[in-house]
């Protein structure tokens, strides 16, 4: 049956169900299709720390939000337009982020007394007034799934597990999307092992699609046109994958082998998983016994002439503290990726946060400066990781690259760079026994030479004790220590000449500058644009380089009457900026394990500027 098709600029769908319901897969499939259709998009997976908590409970709910559009999509959306809820728990925990008038699609079959109890509700929310503000579609998804494959003699458990494809098919119909991306996926994923399983899943997917087409409850279909992105070749990419690719690309460009020493930890493990597939790229991944061994092995690898990398998250980062100090005094290249998550301690392991910034910049014993930078979007993880590697090699220093759970797990379209266009990363290993001194310095960068074992005539020893300028010998001389501490600091400061000036979106002066860093880029850009559209004098500076800061950051700050720094932490960048530039910056800190919402930032802007709400 043909339905009228309505064109929308952007749509946000949230799939929610049990951890075992395959919501992450469903969301990813929908995302991939949107990507291939040329939509801009942004995703927010949101899953519990338990692998598969008991079915039906609220703490077992796993969600995946995808926003896609024909215009620039910068955030996964403060609220969603459509909520697909596979059971009551998924409904009650997610309905609060559905916009007024939004659409709810529920698996009616799961609305049983048992599930109400598990979801801690006393009555059926579909039957009371609580959902009046929304458009609710009750669909017997389980039953429809079962009947789609009734003749195939599959277990009830299988039926349960494949019902997500029904929901996916239905959404494809509703948003007028082709099935082929998912068809191909199912064929590849299941086809090889079990043709029957593939067949069944395909049938369910199509049943969902056809259900929309046939059943007369949906009056409209929607369409979201391709986005007008800059011309080029695009792919959809998750942040953690982008990080992995950035590291490989940097190593290749530098002509080095990539060595990853890592220890699994949510939400960073996917970088390890990605890289461990790349054996044919001479990528060596070493899953160490812990995070300390992981970073130490990477230090050893760098000494031996590889690009040493270690990847982790919060608690793992804490464990690396001592060894980072060693890498700093050894002055070896090392990339440390911290995919930040909710803290303190184990905290909220599957949620996002930006609370490891001060740790990255100053959280070590002794004076131990290094370079810190942060990625601003899932695709930007590629550039951030690449840049971290470039600086690490050029300045012979560890560099911390901060991403976060939202960036790492989120996805967006990425304009794939041409390998030839990537910045060169020249590497010169020391070779000359006549002139070699382990702690001699490049005049410009202050980097010491990289002399790798195997090189004739350059045997030398380095270590964690203070070293004599030039020779690198152990040295307890008071003046030398003072000199070396300041020299190491100066080396990091000099990176300032190697990084771009701070840019600013909006006017270069005005009433308010909003300063952001890391994964909040999109949210804050949206908030500032909205405020500017409403006539307010507000600009946005997103700081990628957190140590050292870009040379012109101070100048920029001083041109505004007020500075606002929203962060998903209790005020960290703000401390660094206030300390360095003595500007009375104001913080905005919402620490909920979730990306900031553009709206709340916008409101804060209005509050500061004394403007009227909306």
């Amino acid at each position: 049956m043909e339905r009228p098709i309505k064109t929308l600029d952007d749509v946000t769908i949230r799939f929610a169900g049990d951890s075992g319901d395959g919501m992450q897969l469903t969301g990813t499939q929908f995302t991939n299709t949107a990507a291939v259709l040329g939509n801009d998009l942004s995703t927010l997976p949101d899953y519990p720390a338990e692998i598969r908590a008991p079915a039906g409970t609220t703490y077992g709910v796993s969600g995946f939000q995808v926003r896609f559009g024909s215009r620039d999509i910068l955030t996964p959306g403060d609220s969603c337009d459509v909520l697909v809820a596979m059971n009551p728990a998924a409904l009650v925990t997610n309905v609060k982020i559905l916009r007024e008038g939004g659409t709810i699609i529920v698996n009616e079959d799961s609305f049983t007394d048992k599930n109400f109890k598990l979801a801690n509700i006393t009555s059926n929310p579909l039957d009371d007034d609580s959902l009046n503000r929304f458009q609710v579609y009750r669909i017997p998804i389980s039953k429809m799934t079962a009947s789609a494959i009734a003749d195939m003699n599959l277990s009830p458990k299988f039926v349960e597990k494949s019902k997500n494809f029904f929901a996916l098919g239905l959404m494809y119909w509703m948003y007028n999307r082709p099935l082929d991306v998912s068809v191909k996926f199912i064929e590849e994923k299941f086809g090889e092992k079990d043709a029957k399983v593939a067949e069944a899943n395909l049938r369910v997917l199509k049943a969902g699609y056809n259900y929309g087409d046939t059943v007369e409850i949906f009056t409209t279909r929607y369409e979201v046109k391709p986005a007008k992105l800059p011309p080029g070749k695009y792919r959809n990419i998750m942040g953690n994958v982008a990080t992995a690719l950035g590291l490989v690309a940097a190593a290749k460009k530098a002509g080095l082998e990539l060595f990853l020493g890592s220890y699994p930890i949510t939400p960073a493990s996917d970088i390890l998983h990605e890289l461990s597939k790349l054996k044919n790229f001479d990528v060596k991944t070493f899953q160490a016994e812990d995070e300390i061994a992981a970073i130490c092995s990477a230090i050893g690898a760098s000494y031996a002439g590889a690009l040493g990398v270690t990847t982790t998250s919060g608690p793992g980062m804490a464990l690396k503290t001592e060894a980072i100090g060693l890498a700093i005094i050894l002055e070896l290249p090392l990339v440390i990726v911290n995919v930040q998550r909710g803290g303190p301690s184990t905290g909220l392991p599957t949620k996002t946060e930006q609370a490891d910034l001060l740790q990255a910049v100053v959280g070590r014993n002794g004076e131990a400066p290094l370079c810190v930078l942060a990625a601003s979007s899932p695709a930007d993880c590629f550039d951030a990781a690449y840049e971290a590697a470039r600086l690490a090699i050029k300045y012979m220093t560890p560099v911390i690259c901060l991403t976060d759970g939202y960036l790492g797990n989120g996805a967006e379209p990425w304009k794939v760079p041409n390998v030839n266009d990537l910045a060169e990363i020249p590497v010169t290993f020391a070779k000359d026994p006549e002139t070699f001194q382990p702690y001699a310095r490049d005049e410009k960068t202050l980097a010491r030479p990289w002399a790798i074992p195997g090189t004739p005539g350059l045997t030398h020893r380095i270590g964690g004790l203070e070293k004599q300028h030039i020779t690198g010998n152990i040295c307890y001389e008071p003046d030398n220590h003072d000199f070396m501490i300041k020299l190491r600091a100066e080396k990091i400061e000099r990176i300032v000449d190697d990084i771009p000036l701070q840019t600013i979106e909006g006017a270069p002066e005005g009433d308010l500058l909003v300063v952001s860093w890391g994964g909040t880029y999109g949210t804050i850009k949206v908030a500032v644009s909205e405020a500017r559209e409403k006539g307010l004098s507000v600009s946005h500076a997103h700081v990628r380089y957190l140590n050292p800061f870009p040379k012109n950051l101070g100048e920029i700050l001083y041109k505004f009457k007020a500075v606002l720094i929203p962060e998903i932490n209790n005020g960290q960048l703000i401390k660094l900026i206030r300390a360095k530039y003595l500007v009375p910056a104001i913080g905005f800190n919402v620490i909920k394990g979730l990306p900031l919402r553009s709206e709340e930032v916008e409101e804060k802007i209005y509050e500061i500027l004394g403007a009227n709400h909306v």
Partner: protein
Amino acid sequence: MSDTLTQVQPVKLTIKDFQSDQDVRWCPGCGDYSILAQMQRVFPEFGRPKEKIVAISGIGCSSRLPYYVDVYGIHGIHGRAPAIASGVKIANPELDVWVATGDGDGLSIGGNHMIHMLRRNLNIKVILFNNQIYGLTKGQFSPTSELGQVTKSTPYGVIDYPFVPVSLAMGASATFVARAMDRDPKHLQEMVRRAEKHHGSAFVEIYQNCSVFNDGAFFQYTEKETRDDNVVYLEHGKPLVFAKQTKGIRLNGFTPEAVSIADGKYSVNDLLVHNENDSTLAFILANMIHDPNLPRPMGVFVSLDRPSYEDQLDQQIAKMKSKKGVGDLQKLLDGEETWEIQ
């Protein structure tokens, strides 16, 4: 990845080549001097250019060793030498990697890295200087200190039951485990040689005298007057005899006993014959430490064949390259699905 391509002729070096320009800074009378000297003496025999050798250590008196050997080296952080060494070896399997560590560095804070390195069987050689004390921090007990030992941190005696380093290594599925003494240079040299020859992780415990904080801890084994009676040297395929061939070790069930072979009751034929390939026997020999009536075994406890970690990794890499072809970066970046925007 063998370096026979680049290096056809074995190199001829001497002990001098392995002496660095750094002043040796151990206390007078410290057993570390001998261990250093034996290593410097044996290294030239390997016929390897010294630039292909890397010495890695943690922190401790013993961990200063890399400064004094003229090879590449890292004086790391406390306990982490095996982890640093693993990275070096995996990144460049052509290098000979040696770890110098102490009973504190290698078995206390670094115990975990040690046992994991051993099980993985990375082709790395560990020289563990066991002086049953923390030297560098001035005399606290270590995991090998003896029960009752009075140290700075145990004024009333140690109550921590000590590790037997050899047993621990066996428990961690080590493929090569040996023991030697600072004051028996020839035998120590031989153990260093054997460690080098072994393809895989080699763990060599060395009894080392700390002349300042635990002087004489091993004198019953190391000194001429008492050594014969208190030490039994292990030799593959040979019976365990000691005390100038007057005594030997026989097994009573699994329990080793010292017996006289001079008074006619037992002969050499009754004695336990050493077998380096038997890990159970190694475990039995390791536990002889618990019986004060038994001599202390020195030598190679066990030497087993097992593929090294880095060999397997290199094989996996070679296999994936032949299967998937050498990686093409552009293709990797493109991923499985791209689309063009004009």
